[in-house]
């Protein structure tokens, strides 16, 4: 088997059922076998293209600007309290 499904799922913070683990082990191995075709190519002299076009960093002034729709933003919060996002306890 090419891929340790449980380990990768843990890295991705992705819960999987037992059936999904078994299915993905087979399917992802097939996809990776296909991807291994790339190994046939000599790419030693090539530069990796993370973009299709030349991109550069675009900076703006680090300035506080008002955010007017905080109510609309918080309306999407799964849990909200006192105008803040509420999350499970992260410290014991």
């Amino acid at each position: 088997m090419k891929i340790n499904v449980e380990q990768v799922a843990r890295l991705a913070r992705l819960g999987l059922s037992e059936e999904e683990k078994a299915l993905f082990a087979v399917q992802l191995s097939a996809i990776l076998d296909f991807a291994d075709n790339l190994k046939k190519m000599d790419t030693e002299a090539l530069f990796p293209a993370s973009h299709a076009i030349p991109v550069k960093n675009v900076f703006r002034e680090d300035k506080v600007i008002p955010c007017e729709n905080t109510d609309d933003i918080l309306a999407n919060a799964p849990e909200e309290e006192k105008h803040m996002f509420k999350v499970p306890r992260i410290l014991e």
Partner: protein
Amino acid sequence: MHNQTCHELHSLLTNKKISSLELTEAVFNRIEKVEDKVKAFVTLTKEEALHQAKAADERIKNNQNITPLTGIPIAIKDNLCTRGILTTCSSKILANYIPPYDATAVTKIKTAGAVIIGKTNLDEFAMGSSTENSGFHPTHNPWNIETVPGGSSGGSAAAVAANEVILATGSDTGGSIRQPASFCGVVGLKPTYGRVSRYGLVAFASSLDQIGPLTKDVTDSAIMLNVLSGHDPKDSTSIDFPVPDYRKCLIDDVKKVKIGIIKDLLKEGVDPEIKKAIKDAADKLANLGAEMIEVSLPSFEYAVATYYLIAPAEASSNLARYDGVKFGNRIKGAKDLLSMYYETRRNGFGPEVKRRIMLGTYALSAGYYDAYYLKALKVRTLIQQDFEKAFGRCDVLISPTAPTVAFKIGEKVSDPLSMYLSDIATIPVNLAGLPAISIPCGFSRGLPMGLQIMGRAFAEEIILRVAFTYEQNTEWHKKSAFV
């Protein structure tokens, strides 16, 4: 009315032969009639649409700010944020998400005075080639409802083909505008990367995603590109490059235009009837005076493998934000933070999204990064170089848009790799950031076939000109779907 194009309806509207309200009602009547069979939409916004139609009629009456889109019903793919209107990406994890802002493309469409009638179905987070990966329901091809409409913009393509709307937006990461356009017999254009702002387009693979139009003909495509194009400070990858009037390049003339036929995309695996249709289209263009050149881009053989490492890698990073904290659904009763993440994502994502997150996480993980992700980025350079060489000899390149016509619903769902291979002809263009259009070029067993025309970066004008010339000299785009 509903079966006419935007430019035809524009003259009827401005000559006061019809009102936008009548047109919008006609469109909703059509939806009522066929939507049960097609299922192109996730959300319909009739009340708001009728309101916008009345506002458009006011603009026309007062002869104020009339644009070619004023009063024209349009559908928005449901991965483009619409303020105050559900934007689900056809994912259960975003089933209740109401964006606090509009995507720049949506702002431009609203400013032009178009009437937004609803949000269209897609493969969850635009990951798929059939719209069967929607977390809600599959969409059906209006030419034969037992077949898929293609994907991921299958809802938009099907809605336009079924005359449920006049225009639609799509997004294209590996063919998601062009392949459904081909399957549904409509025109789909993926602009150059950076031509259209991605602000408010829910990110799938940020170095590949681009927004574009799905329309009934090439003229409407140019009209919509005029509206969508332009630099946006809110998208640092959008490019500050002059926007021409794309309607001006709609010239019925391809004399002396150098057109390359990509022989690597006419090999085995391509339906013989599609091969024939592309050869016929090439003959047609030659008869109209184009200079035809056979070209080979050998690296295309590796494009699908390259794409299915790069796109999932970017997706695994982009989709990390769906963690149940700030928006989207959160699983109830998780005992701690980690199990909230695991269970929220297990419950919220469908199988294809999970597969791609897994694949991308693996390709980026320590020990595999160089062998998979970095390798793919280098092959991407090679694909870009092959394009450069071909464009040294040709003005545009042509190929089939897809190797087959629309396949049966269910046919490929259990075999992801065979689904991925249906993107073979569309993927190279995204990897190189180039523009390409798919236009109807015939029918096989009653299902539409698509001709893809590709150009250099920012050469949308020549693509549109070749597409327009082909369209003016053929009748394919005039046929209507059965539904």
